């Protein structure tokens, strides 16, 4: 196509007809063949579901009978549903505390590992292993280790004279328990931050040391700004994930067996959505919930991106 922009004068007819050479045409055909799985998948499993979900959110649909168009009724109902407010509150509580704590803990471990020298590999493995544990098993471990009477956590707290709370049954302590056990899987973030730390040029520290900056000042003024890109990446990814948290909480507090005690404290938005869709078969209502979730996540991400522009140092700018 660069050939057509030479100064031999306008040749519109030729431009249109002979726009691509034969080898270019072959390339285009080959490219389309290679990316065809994604195009098909996009149309079937993304584009169509998005459109259909938007339509379903305006209907009453139970899978058995045909969708019944009801306009914005689902959204109106949503506003009045106390369980929506409750689940949003639970999710917001979890996200607002879990994400910052998770990022700070990951950073602390990455900084420690960066000082560990040769043994870093061993510790990195130890920190990463919990990430391999299936979420169901994590949920079960939560029930076992955080058990109010006989759990390991409260036993250890007892050694220090602290009477631990009933983590798995007291509504005030269910979410803190879930947040604590979620920190068990900081491993992947630690690895990301450690990789970023190792990319910080040493010269920066050398000159800082000449100027008499101590470790803490170096960390705050050099290290954290230099890896702010990775920190921000973890922040965004985990905010989105935390807002959709499901498996561990569902395992521990929901399902067919445990309706014996109140589990409202663990009713996260994704869990309530799942219940509406697949336990009550309220497909229209669940679709409306999904769109509300989408908008919330979009707004959170946009705000974070806006804020990050002021704080994040992008190494890529210099490359």
């Amino acid at each position, binding site marked *: 196509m660069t050939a057509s922009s030479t100064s031999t004068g306008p040749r519109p007819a030729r431009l249109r007809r002979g726009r691509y050479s034969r080898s270019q045409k072959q390339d285009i055909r080959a490219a389309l063949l*290679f990316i065809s*799985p994604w195009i098909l998948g996009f149309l079937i499993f993304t584009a169509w579901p*998005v459109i259909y979900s938007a339509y379903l959110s305006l209907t009453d649909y139970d899978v058995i009978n045909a969708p019944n168009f009801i306009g914005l009724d689902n959204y109106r109902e949503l506003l009045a549903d106390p369980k929506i407010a409750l689940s949003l509150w639970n999710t917001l509580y979890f996200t607002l505390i879990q994400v910052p704590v998770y990022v700070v803990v990951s950073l602390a471990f990455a900084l420690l590992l960066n000082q560990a020298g040769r043994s870093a590999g061993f510790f990195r493995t130890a920190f990463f292993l919990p990430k391999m544990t299936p979420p169901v098993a994590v949920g079960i471990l939560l029930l076992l280790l955080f058990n109010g009477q006989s759990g390991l956590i409260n036993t250890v707290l007892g050694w220090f004279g602290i009477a631990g709370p009933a983590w798995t049954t007291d509504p005030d302590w269910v979410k803190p328990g879930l947040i604590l056990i979620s920190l068990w899987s900081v491993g992947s973030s630690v690895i990301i931050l450690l990789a970023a730390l190792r990319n910080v040029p040493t010269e920066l520290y050398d000159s800082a040391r000449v100027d008499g900056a101590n470790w803490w000042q170096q960390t705050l003024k050099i290290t954290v700004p230099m890896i702010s890109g990775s920190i921000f990446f973890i922040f965004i990814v985990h905010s989105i994930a935390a807002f959709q948290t499901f498996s561990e909480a569902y395992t521990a507090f929901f399902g067919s067996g445990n309706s014996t005690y109140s589990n409202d404290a663990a009713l996260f938005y994704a869990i309530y959505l799942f219940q509406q869709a697949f336990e009550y078969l309220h497909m229209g209502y669940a679709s409306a919930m999904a769109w509300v979730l989408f908008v919330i996540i979009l707004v959170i991400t946009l705000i974070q991106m806006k804020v990050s522009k002021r704080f994040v140092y992008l190494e890529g700018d210099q490359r």
Partner: protein
Amino acid sequence: MSSPSLPRPQLPGGLAAAADSSTLSTSAAVDAAGVLAPGEAPMAVPARTGRQQSRRPSWGPGRIAVLATLIISTVVFIYPFIWLLSASFKPRSEVFDNKLIPETFTFDNYLNVWQEAPMALWLGNTLLVTVLAASTVTISSAMVAWGFAYFRFPLRGPLFGLVLATMMLPGAVTMVPTFLIWNSLGMVGTLTPLWAGNLFGSAFYIFLLRQFFLGLPRELFEAAKIDGANNWSMFWRIALPLCKPAVVVTVLFEFQAAWTDLMRPLIYLRDSSTFTVPRGLKALLDQYGFGGEWHWEIVVTASVITTIPMIILFFIGQKQFVEGIATTGTKG
């Protein structure tokens, strides 16, 4: 997409050998191999020259404090595994005694769990789903990634932007219509919905693999073309083997994702004979944990059986896991 922000992969040292085995003998390819082959690290590990790490550690009090903190943290991170393993060898009455070494050591739980639940069947189902999910997503994503990395075609930029945009879409939005698709195909209740979507590639892996394909020297493929290689053999016999580390990362990541998934089995599986192990474990918890039967030793033992394959997987592919994660996070 002019300057990819991920570190470019270095070519593995085996490039020359790979070039020999395929039809490449032109000097351009050999030159490319000679220039680009020195990296011994096969993946996009940040270079270590002149980094902090090279400072010689001294045994001051600061370093001892660092190591002590790390050792204590390691105990905290590893102990839940040990607790679980230990509990699985205890009789029912002692499961909650928090003792490191079982007072009464018994192997009964491991014998009983197969009778209490169709564990072997669940393991087989999970293995089937996992292998199908990992192999299909790797091949399809690699094809798509290669299409975006090598060929120039109209709308390439916007289309790839669309690939990336789909990663931002919360799964909840497509969850209900996707269920309805499988439902209308009569597939709900079978294992198919757990993996068949992978036939169409996955945005994250497409992104990851494309980064690696972009790192391959173009001259290599021009030379192969002159030697008569067609588009498919350039992809299958040259590009894919050269990006083996990224392919391995994709397989491992998806293997783990498919093995540990709970939500989709909850949505799609009805009969306990079709369960995957995580779904089965949830059923065991509901029956023996809360359901009044209080057989926690069964739940604990089944948890161990569900988790151990993932631990083994990690130790097999530890290097790839760590490097794969480091790559994805270095400024996405």
